[in-house]
C-alpha cells in the first residue's frame, strides 16, 4: 500500500513524536485520540456481541457456561455504553469539529480537555483490568442493580470505579463544551447561525453536566456498600433497593439522550448537505434538541414499571415518556421535509443518514410501546427491550457514527475512501442489522426474557435468524472499517470541500492546520446551510 504522510495538524505540533500526541492540547489531536480508542473499544465489544449471539443460536449451553455468558453481556454492555456510545460522537467528533464549526481555535479549556481524555483512557484500562483480575469479570449487567451487585463475588468494585472515571471524563467534556459554545463563538456566529451539530452538542453537554454526577454517586454508593456492608439498600436496615434504581436511571435515562442527540446533530448536517437545501425548520430543530434534553430528565422511572414502584409514579412517568417522543417526531418530519425539492445525492454519508432515520424510527416507535404502562408490563426485560435499544443505539447513534466517519474522515485525513465498497458495506450493515434486531424484537414479544443464556425451544427459530443476521452485520462492519482504513491511508486526496457543504469546517484546508484558521479569525456572515455559491471540490 502506498503511504503518504498526512499534513495539517498531523504534522504541526509544539512537540514531536508520541509525546506530541499524548501531551497535545490541540482539540483535533485529542479528538483523533478519542476516535482511535473509541473504535478500538467498539471492536472489542462488538466481538462480545457476536459471542452472545453465538451462544444464543440454540437452546442449552452452546459455546459458554452461564457465568461466562453473564460476564459477557455485562462487559459488552458496559463497554458499549460507557466506552463507546456515550463518548463516541461528543468526545470524538465533538472535539474534532466543535471549535472549527463555531470559528474558534480551540475549546475553552484545552488542558482540561486532555485531562478528560486521560480519565477516559484510565477508565478504559481499569475496565479491562476488571475483567481479568479479582473475582473475575463483573456479572451484574450494565445496570448494577442492587442487591445483586452488592453480593456477587465478581469484580464489581473495579468496574464501578472505571465507570465512575468515565463519568468524570464525560462531565469534563460537558463543562468544556458548554463554556466553549458560550464564550468562543467567532464574530458573527450568533445563536441562529450555529450548525445543528453544535446545538445538539450544547444540549448534550448540559445533560452531561447535570445528570452524570448522579451516576457518580450511585456507583460510589455501590462500592461503599460492598466495602462496608452498611445496608444502604437493604430493607432490613432502613434501605430501599428500588431507590437505587431511581438514582441509577436519573442518570441513565438522560444518558440515552447523551447518546442520541449528537447523532441527530450529525444527521442534521448531512441531510442538508446532500440535498443542497437549507435544513427545514432550523429553530424547531434547535429548540427540540433542548426540549429533548430537558424533558429527557423527567422520565427516568419508565424503566421501573415492574419494579414495585407506586402506581402514581407510573402514571406520571408514563405520561412524560410520551411527551419526550414529540420533539423526536418533530425532528423526523423536518429531516424528511428537507429532502423535499432538494437535489439529493446518495453518497455514503447520506445512505447512513437515511438508514439512521429508518432505524431510529423503528427503535423510537418501539419505545412508545415500552412507554405505555400496560404494554411494558409484558415487554419489560424481554428481548424486545434489547431490540429497542439496539435500534436506537446501534441503528441510531451507531449509524450516525458511521455516517460521521464517512462524512468527516476525508476532512481530517485529506483522503477519500472507495465509494462503491462503502455502499456495499452499508447495504450489508443495514440488512444484517434489521434481520438481527427485528428477530430479537419479535422473540421478545413472544416472551423471551433478556439476559437469558438458555431458553425454551419455542424461541429457537427467531434466535437462529438473529444470529445469522449478526454474521451479515459482521461482514458489513469489517468491510466498512477496512475500506475506511484504506481510504485514510492511501485514498485519493481531496480538496477542502469535497461534499459542497457550507459549515465552517469546510472552509479550512483538509486536514485543518493547527489552530484551524490562519492568522485571521473568521467572521461569519451567513447561516450554516446556505449552499448558493458553494461548489464541491472534485476528487
Amino acid at each position, binding site marked *: 500500500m502506498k503511504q503518504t504522510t498526512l499534513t495539517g495538524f498531523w504534522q504541526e505540533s509544539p512537540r514531536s513524536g508520541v509525546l506530541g500526541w499524548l501531551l497535545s492540547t490541540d482539540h483535533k489531536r485529542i479528538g483523533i485520540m478519542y476516535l482511535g480508542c473509541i473504535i478500538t473499544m467498539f471492536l472489542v465489544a462488538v466481538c462480545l456481541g457476536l459471542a452472545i449471539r453465538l451462544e444464543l443460536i440454540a437452546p442449552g449451553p452452546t459455546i459458554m457456561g452461564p457465568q461466562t455468558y453473564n460476564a459477557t453481556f455485562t462487559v459488552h454492555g458496559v463497554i458499549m455504553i460507557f466506552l463507546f456510545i456515550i463518548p463516541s460522537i461528543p468526545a470524538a467528533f465533538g472535539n474534532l469539529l466543535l471549535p472549527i464549526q463555531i470559528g474558534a481555535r480551540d475549546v475553552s479549556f484545552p488542558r482540561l480537555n486532555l485531562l478528560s481524555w486521560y480519565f477516559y483512557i484510565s477508565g478504559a484500562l481499569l475496565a479491562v483490568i476488571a475483567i481479568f483480575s479479582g473475582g473475575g469479570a463483573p456479572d451484574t449487567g450494565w445496570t448494577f442493580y442492587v442487591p445483586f451487585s452488592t453480593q456477587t463475588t465478581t469484580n464489581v468494585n473495579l468496574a464501578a470505579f472505571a465507570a465512575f472515571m468515565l463519568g468524570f471524563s464525560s462531565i469534563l467534556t460537558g463543562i468544556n463544551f458548554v463554556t466553549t459554545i458560550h464564550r468562543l463563538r467567532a464574530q458573527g456566529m450568533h445563536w441562529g447561525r450555529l450548525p445543528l451539530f453544535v446545538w445538539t452538542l450544547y444540549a448534550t453537554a448540559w445533560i452531561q453536566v447535570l445528570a452524570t454526577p448522579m451516576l457518580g454517586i450511585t456507583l460510589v454508593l455501590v462500592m461503599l456498600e460492598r466495602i462496608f456492608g452498611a445496608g444502604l439498600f437493604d430493607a432490613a436496615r432502613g434501605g430501599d433497593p428500588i431507590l437505587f434504581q431511581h438514582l441509577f436511571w436519573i442518570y441513565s435515562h438522560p444518558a440515552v439522550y447523551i447518546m442520541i442527540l449528537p447523532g441527530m446533530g450529525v444527521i442534521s448536517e448531512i441531510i442538508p448537505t446532500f440535498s443542497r437545501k437549507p435544513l427545514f425548520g432550523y429553530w424547531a430543530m434547535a429548540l427540540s434538541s433542548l426540549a429533548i434534553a430537558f424533558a429527557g430528565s423527567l422520565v427516568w422511572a419508565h424503566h421501573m414499571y415492574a419494579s414495585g414502584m407506586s402506581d402514581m409514579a407510573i402514571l406520571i412517568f408514563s405520561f412524560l415518556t410520551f411527551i419526550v417522543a414529540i420533539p423526536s417526531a418533530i425532528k423526523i418530519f423536518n429531516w424528511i421535509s428537507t429532502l423535499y425539492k432538494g437535489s*439529493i445525492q446518495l453518497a455514503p454519508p447520506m445512505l447512513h443518514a437515511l438508514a439512521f432515520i429508518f432505524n431510529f424510527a423503528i427503535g423510537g*416507535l418501539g419505545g412508545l410501546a415500552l412507554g405505555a404502562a400496560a404494554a411494558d408490563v409484558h415487554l419489560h426485560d424481554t428481548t424486545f427491550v434489547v431490540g429497542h435499544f439496539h435500534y436506537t443505539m446501534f441503528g441510531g447513534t451507531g449509524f450516525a457514527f458511521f455516517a460521521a466517519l464517512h462524512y468527516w474522515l476525508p476532512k481530517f485525513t485529506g483522503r477519500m475512501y472507495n465509494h462503491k465498497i462503502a455502499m456495499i458495506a452499508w447495504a450489508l450493515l443495514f440488512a444484517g442489522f434489521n434481520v438481527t434486531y427485528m428477530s430479537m424484537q419479535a422473540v421478545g414479544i413472544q416472551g423471551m426474557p433478556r439476559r437469558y443464556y438458555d431458553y425454551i425451544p419455542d424461541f429457537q427459530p427467531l434466535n437462529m435468524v438473529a444470529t445469522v443476521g449478526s454474521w451479515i452485520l459482521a461482514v458489513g462492519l469489517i468491510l466498512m472499517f477496512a475500506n475506511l482504513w484504506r481510504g485514510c491511508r492511501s485514498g485519493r486526496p481531496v480538496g477542502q470541500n469535497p461534499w459542497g457543504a457550507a459549515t465552517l469546517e469546510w472552509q479550512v484546508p483538509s486536514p485543518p492546520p493547527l489552530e484551524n484558521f490562519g492568522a485571521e479569525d473568521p467572521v461569519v456572515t451567513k447561516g450554516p446551510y446556505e449552499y448558493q455559491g458553494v461548489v464541491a471540490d472534485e476528487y
Partner: protein
Amino acid sequence: MNPLTNPTAQAVDNVLIYIFGFSLILLLGITAVTVYFVIRYRRSKCPEPTSQAHGHLGLEILWTVLPTLIVLTMFWYGWSNYLGLRQVPDNALEIKATARMWSWQFQYPDGRRESKLYVPVGTPIKVIMTSVDVLHSFFAPAFRVKRDTVPGMETYVWFTATEPGSYDIFCAEYCGTGHADMITTIEALNAEDYQQWSQPVVSAEPRGLTVLNEQGCTGCHSLDGSEGIAPSLFQLAGAERALVRGDRGEIIAIDSDYLHRAIRQPEIELVEGYDPMMPPYDEQTISEDDLQAVINYLMGTATAEPKPDARQLLEDNGCLGCHSTDGSLIVGPTFKGIGQRGVTLERDGKTVEIQVDADYLRRALLKPNEEIVQGFAPMMPAADYLSTAEIEALVEYLLTQ
C-alpha cells in the same frame, strides 16, 4: 402467538395492537415518503434544488400537535388497561410466592408448599410475592403479567387462567448464574383435577425428596449426577469432597453432620470450585425434621434400606442399661424429654449451656467424652460402631422423646 382469552392478556394485547398498529402506519408512511423523495429529487434528475424553503410555521405546528394527540391516546389506553392489571377481582384466591436464587416457592392458604403454581381454571389468582435474596421477577408471558419480587417488600400480580394447561413462568429480573434456569410453570387445572390435587396426598415419595423439590434445591442441584452451578446431590453418602474453609482446603468424606452444616450454614465451607452462592436455610424455612428427612434422603438411608428401628437399637446396644426412658436416673441422664431440654455441658474445661439438637446428639453419640453433661462422669462408650443410618435413626428417635 395464539390469541389468548384470559383477561390480563387481553388488556395488554389490545394496547400492544393499538400502539404497534399506529407505529406500523407511521413507519410505512415515513419510509414511503422518504424513498419517494430520494428517487424523485435525485441529483441526476434535479441538479439544483427547486426550493430554498427554510421552514413553515404551519407545518411545524401540524407535526407537533398531531403526534401529541396520537401519543396521548396511546398513553391513556396504556394507563387505563394497566389499571386493570392492578385491580384484583374480589374473589381472588391468594397465593404467596417466595423467590430465591433460583427457584420459586408457592404457599397456599392451607400451608401447602409447591414449586409449581397449581391453579384452578376460571378463578382469579392473586400471587403475593417477595424475595429472600436479590431481585427476581415473576413473568408469565401467557398472561402478560410481570412484577419484580423485592426483598423486604411485597408485590403482587393477578391473572385468571381460562384454559387448562401448563404455562411458563420465567424470572425476568437478572439474578445471577441461574437466572435463565429460574423457570417454573403455572399448572391450570380444571375444577375436577384441582379438587383432586388439593386433597392432601399421602405421597409415596420420601419426605426428603419432597422438601428438595419444594424448597427449590433442585433449581441448583441436580439429583442425577450432572454437575451445573452447584454440585449434584447424587450418591453423596461417604463420597469424598474437597472443601475450602476460609483459605484452607481439606478433603472429607460426606456424612450427615457435614450435610447439616452445608445446608444451615453453607458459607462456612465451600465445595472446591463452586461459588459461595448457596443461601443459608434457617429453621423457619426448613424445619429440623424436614432437614433431617433431606439428609436421610441424601445419605441414602431413606430409600436404600428400611429405616433402622431405633427402639430396638437402644435395647440391642445396651443403652438402656444406663439411660432410662421414664425419667428415673440410672447411670446416665434419662432419655425422657431429651429432645426438648437444655443441658449444661463441660467442654474444654468451660461450662456451656446448650439446647439439645440433632447435631449435639450426634456428637454425644460419636464423641461422648468431649462434652460431658454436668454432674455425670465421663464413662459413655462411643457409639461409632453404628452405621450412619443407625446413628441418624437414633438421633431422630431421641429428638422426639
